[in-house]
C-alpha cells in the first residue's frame, strides 16, 4: 500500500516536471508500460490472498486511471506548446473565401416588405383579398356601373360564365348591398375591391393597406404587363381629410425613397373617390428640372388617390354621413422599377436567374 502511494507521488512529480514528449513517454513506460511499476503490481495481484487482492487491486486500478489521465493531459499540453513554437505557414488572405450559396428574394417581395413595414409603422394593418373577384366587388360596389365608359379605364379578364365561386367567398353579411348572387367573375383589375370587403366586416376607424396581384387585359410592353402588383390604402374615421392624405403620402415617399419628397396633387377621376387626385412626386433624379426618367415633366406619377366616395360607404353598408376617409392605390411594380432602375416590367415575371440573382 505504502509502495503504491509512493509510486503515485513519484510518478506525479515526474509528470509535472516533464518538458517534452520524450520524457513523458519515458514516464509512461516507467509506470504504466509493459514492465511499468504499476503494471507489475497489478500483475502480481493474483498471487495475493483474496482480501488483500481486492484492497490493493482497487487502489492500483484507481492510480493507473489517474496517472493515465494526467499523462494524456500533460502530453497534449506539451504537444500544443510545440505547435505554438513552430514557425507558422502564412495564410494567403487573397485566396477567395468559401461563400455560402444563399438564394435571392424577388425584388417585388423586397419592395412589398418595405412598403408594408413603412405603413405598419404608420399604424396601417396589412390585409389581403382574392384574385378572382365578382363583378360586384370589382366594379358596381365601387360606383363603376355596367355600360358606362368609365369601365373602359379597366381592361378586364372575364371568366367563362359556367364557372362559379362558392357563395361563402362573397362574404355577404346581411348589410351587403350585393343584389345579384349569380355574379360575373373576373380577375380583379385593382386591389380596390378589398376596400368594400373590409368595410363590410369592420367598422371605422380603420387604417389598412392591401398589397396584391392584379390583372389587366392589355398589350404588354416595357411598362405594361397582364399581371402586376398594386398596393391599396384606406383610412377612414370621422374627419379624415385630403390634407391628411397628402401628409401620409408624403411621409411614405420620404421613408421609401430615403430622401425628402415633394408631392403634387392633380385633379383626376376615379369613380370610387370624390374628389380624386393623381399623386405626383417631384422627380427624384433631376429634382424637377426634367430628365429622361420623368419624360422632361419634372414630376413622376406615383399614385392615384382621393376621398372615399359616399357610394362606396353605402356599398359596404356604412352611412356616408358618419364617416370620411381617403383611399389610394399605387403600382408596386413601378416602385420596384424606380428603386432598382429597372427599365422593363416584363423582366419581373420572366424567372430569369441572371435578373433575380441581382437582388
Amino acid at each position, binding site marked *: 500500500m505504502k509502495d503504491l502511494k509512493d509510486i503515485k507521488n513519484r510518478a506525479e512529480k515526474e509528470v509535472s516536471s516533464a518538458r517534452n514528449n520524450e520524457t513523458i513517454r519515458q514516464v509512461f513506460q516507467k509506470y504504466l508500460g509493459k514492465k511499468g511499476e504499476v503494471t507489475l503490481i497489478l500483475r502480481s495481484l493474483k498471487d495475493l490472498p483474496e482480501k488483500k487482492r481486492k484492497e490493493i487491486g482497487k487502489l492500483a486500478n484507481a492510480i493507473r486511471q489517474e496517472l493515465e489521465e494526467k499523462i494524456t493531459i500533460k502530453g497534449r499540453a506539451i504537444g500544443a506548446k510545440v505547435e505554438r513554437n513552430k514557425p507558422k505557414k502564412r495564410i494567403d488572405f487573397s485566396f477567395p473565401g468559401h461563400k455560402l450559396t444563399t*438564394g435571392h428574394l424577388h425584388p417585388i417581395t423586397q419592395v412589398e416588405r418595405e412598403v408594408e413595414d413603412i405603413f405598419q409603422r404608420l399604424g396601417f394593418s396589412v390585409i389581403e383579398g382574392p384574385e378572382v373577384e365578382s363583378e360586384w366587388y370589382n366594379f358596381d360596389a365601387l360606383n363603376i356601373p355596367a355600360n358606362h365608359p368609365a369601365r373602359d379605364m379597366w381592361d378586364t379578364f372575364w371568366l367563362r360564365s359556367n*364557372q362559379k365561386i362558392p357563395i361563402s367567398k362573397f362574404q355577404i353579411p346581411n348589410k351587403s348591398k350585393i343584389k345579384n348572387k349569380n355574379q360575373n367573375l373576373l380577375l380583379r383589375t385593382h386591389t380596390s375591391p378589398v376596400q368594400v370587403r373590409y368595410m363590410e366586416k369592420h367598422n371605422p376607424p380603420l387604417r389598412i393597406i392591401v398589397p396584391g396581384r392584379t390583372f389587366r387585359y392589355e398589350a404588354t410592353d416595357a411598362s405594361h404587363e397582364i399581371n402586376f402588383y398594386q398596393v391599396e390604402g384606406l383610412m377612414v374615421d370621422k*374627419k379624415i381629410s385630403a390634407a391628411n392624405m397628402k401628409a401620409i403620402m408624403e411621409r411614405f415617399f420620404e421613408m421609401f425613397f430615403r430622401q425628402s419628397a415633394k408631392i403634387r396633387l392633380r385633379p383626376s377621376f376615379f369613380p370610387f373617390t370624390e374628389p380624386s387626385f393623381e399623386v405626383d412626386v417631384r422627380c427624384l433624379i433631376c429634382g424637377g428640372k426634367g430628365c429622361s426618367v420623368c419624360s422632361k415633366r419634372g414630376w413622376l406619377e406615383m399614385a392615384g388617390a382621393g376621398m372615399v366616395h359616399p357610394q362606396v360607404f353605402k356599398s359596404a353598408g356604412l352611412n356616408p354621413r358618419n364617416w370620411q376617409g381617403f383611399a389610394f392605390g399605387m403600382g408596386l411594380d413601378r416602385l420596384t422599377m424606380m428603386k432598382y432602375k429597372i427599365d422593363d416590367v416584363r423582366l419581373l415575371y420572366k424567372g430569369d436567374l441572371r435578373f433575380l440573382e441581382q437582388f
Partner: protein
Amino acid sequence: MLFSYNWLQSFFTGRLPAPKKLAELLTVRSFEVEEVKRTGGPARISVRAPLTERSVAGKDWVLDINVTPNRGTDCLSHLGIARECGASAKLKMKNEKIKIKEEKTISVDNFINVNVNNSSDCPRYTGRVLVGVKVSSSPKYIQERLRACELEPINNIVDAANYVMLELGQPLHAFDLDKIEDQKIFIRRAKIKEKVDALDDKTYKLDKDNLVIADSKKVLAIAGIKGGKSTAIDKKTKNIFLESANFDSVLIRASSQKLGLKTDASLRFEHGMDPNLTELAVDRLAQLIQETAGPHCYAKRCRRACPQSLRSSAGRRAGGKIAKGRIDIYPKKTLSRKLKLDLGKIEGLLEIKIREKEAVRILNSLGLETKADLTVKIPTWRPDLAQNEDFAEEIGRIYGYEKLESSYPTLALIPAKRNDDIFWEDKIKDSLKEAGFSEAYNYSFISKRIGDMIGAGLVELKNPFSEEFYYLRPSLILNLFENIQYNIRNFSAEKNIKIFEIGKIFKQEKGEIVEKKMLSGVMAGGPESFYMLKGIIDSLFENIGVSDYYFDEYQATPEETSFNFWDRHRMAEIKIGGREIGFLGALNFPALLKGGKVQEVFAFDIDFEVLLEECSEESEYRPISKFPAAGRDISLLLPEDARVSEVLNIINASENKYIKDVDLFDFYEGSELPEGKKSLAFHIIFQAENRTLSGREIEAIMAKIIQDLENNLDWEVRKSA
C-alpha cells in the same frame, strides 16, 4: 383627345397663356395634357409672337388632353375645354349668340316627317332642312382646324357637321334630303338581319340591339354611330336634312360594342350627351353651312357673317336657304338640378379654408349659376355634379390643390395588427432563401397547349389573352419548370438551379372555382436532389415550428386526373398529423439541355394555406442534462427494398426513454455485399436526465434493439459498438 389652341383662343377676347403654359395649367386644374404639338404653317414661329400673327392661318398648336370619362358630356368639345381654360386662367369667355336667317316661305314640316318609336332610346330628336346648297370643299380655316384634330376634310357640309361636333360636342349628321324615301324618318331598333352599307364602305349586319335611322324602305344610318351610304352627301346634293339628336348612352355603347365600331359620334353619345344641346347645335350647323355653302355668300352684305379667313377662299361657298322651324321631338324635358353649396363639408373634406365669395366665383366661372342663399343651379351639361363632394372637387382644383397643405390626422393610437399570414410567408421565404432558393414571380396563366394536356378542372377565361396565356394556372409547378428550362441553358451544369414561388393557383372542383395559395419549388439535379429537397423541407418546417409532419407513401386519389406530372415511384406525400399537405418528388418530364441531354427536375408542392395553420412560434426551453451522453453504432445488412423508416421505427419502438437520437450515418450498396442487399449504419445516442448511464444499462438496451431488428428474418445486424 386633340384640341386646337387657336380654336380655344377664339372663345376669348383676352389672351390665353402660351400653349405650353396652358398645358401645364390645365394639367394641374382640369385634365392631364399629354402632349403639345406644333401643327401646320412654318416651323419657326415664336410662341411670344403677337396673337394676330400666331393665329395666321396654318400655324397652330395641338393639345392632346386626357378628358376623364365623367366629363365626356361637356369636355369632348372645344367649348367645354375653353370653359376650363377660362376658369383656370381667370379669363372671361365671349358671349356670342347664334343668328340664323330662316327662309320664311318654306317650313321644315313640308320637307320631312320624323317618328321616334321609343323616347327612352332617343330622348330628343332635333332637325333642320336647308335647300339649295352647293357642295364643294370647305373654307381653309375649317379644313385646318379639322386636320389639327386629325379629321380629314370631305366637303363643306360634312365638314361643318364635324366642325360643330368638335366645337360644341354634339354629334351631328347631314342627310341628302332627296334620297330619303317618302320624306319620312323613323328612329327605331333594327330588325333582325337588317343590313346597312355605311360611309366607311363596310356593310354592317344589325339586330334589335342597334338603334337605326330609317326611312320607309331602308336603314339610313346606325343611330349615334355611323351614317349610311344611301343618303350620303355628294356633289349633286341640293337639299339637306340636318340631324341633331340625343340617344341613350347605354344603348349606343352596347350597339357600338356589338358592331365593333367606335366613332367620334359613338364616343360622345356613350358618355351621355346633354339633350338640351341639340337645338343650339343644329342652329349653329345651319348657320355655318349657310355661311360657307351658299351662292348668296358672294353678296357684299353677307361678308360680315363670314369669318375673316373665308374671304381669302372665295368661290368655296355653297349657301342654301334654311327652312323655317325645327323638327324637335322632346317629350320629356331634362331639367337642371339645384343643390345647396355646403362650404363646411368642403372645408372638412379638403382642409382648406375658402372664402364664400371665392367659392362662388369659381362655380360661376365654370358656368354654374349661384343664388345668394348658395343654391347652385347645375346645368344639364354637368350630370357629374350631384353632391357637395363634387363641388369640393370643382372648387378645390380651380382654387389650386397646391394650396392644400399637408396635415397629420389626429387619431386614437391604435397599433397596426400583425398579419400572421404575411408574417409566416416572409419567414418561409427567408428560410428558402437561406437554403439557396431564388424566388420567381410567374404569370398566373398557362398556355393552351399545356392546359389541354392537363384537361379537366381548369379555370377558363372568356377572353384569353393569347394561346400562351390561355388558362389560369392550376399549379405553380408548370411555370416553375419553365423557369428551370429557361435558366438551365445560361448556367453550368454544376449549378443546382433552385427556384421557388408562393402564389395563387386556380382550379374548378364540382363547378366551383377554388383559389388557393401554394408554396412550390423546383430543383434541377441528380437523384440526390430528392434528399436535398427533403432536407430543405425538414429545416423549413423546423424554422416555422411545424413538428408533427412526416413523409408517406404516395396514395392515388380517385379525383386525380389522368395527367400527373409526378414520377409515382420517386415521390412522397408530405403529411401533417395525418393530413396530406403536399408532395415531394421527381417530375415526369426532364429539362432539356443543349446537345440533346436531359436533366432531371425535382419539386415540392405544398398547400400554403394548410401549412399556415400548423406554423407555430411557441417553443420551450428544456434543461440541458448534466450527465454525459454515450453513443453506440449499429450496422445492418438488409434487403435492398427495406426502408430506413422501418429500421428507425423498430429502434424507436423500444420506447426507451434513454434513447436521445438515432442517426443514419452510413449507407452502402455494392459489389462487396451479397446480391440484393444493402448496408445501413446508425448512430444511437443514449442519455439520462438524472444520472450517468452505466455501460451495462446501455448494452442491455442495445441487445434488446438487436433482437427486435433480427426478428425480421432477412435482416442481419453485422456489428455493433
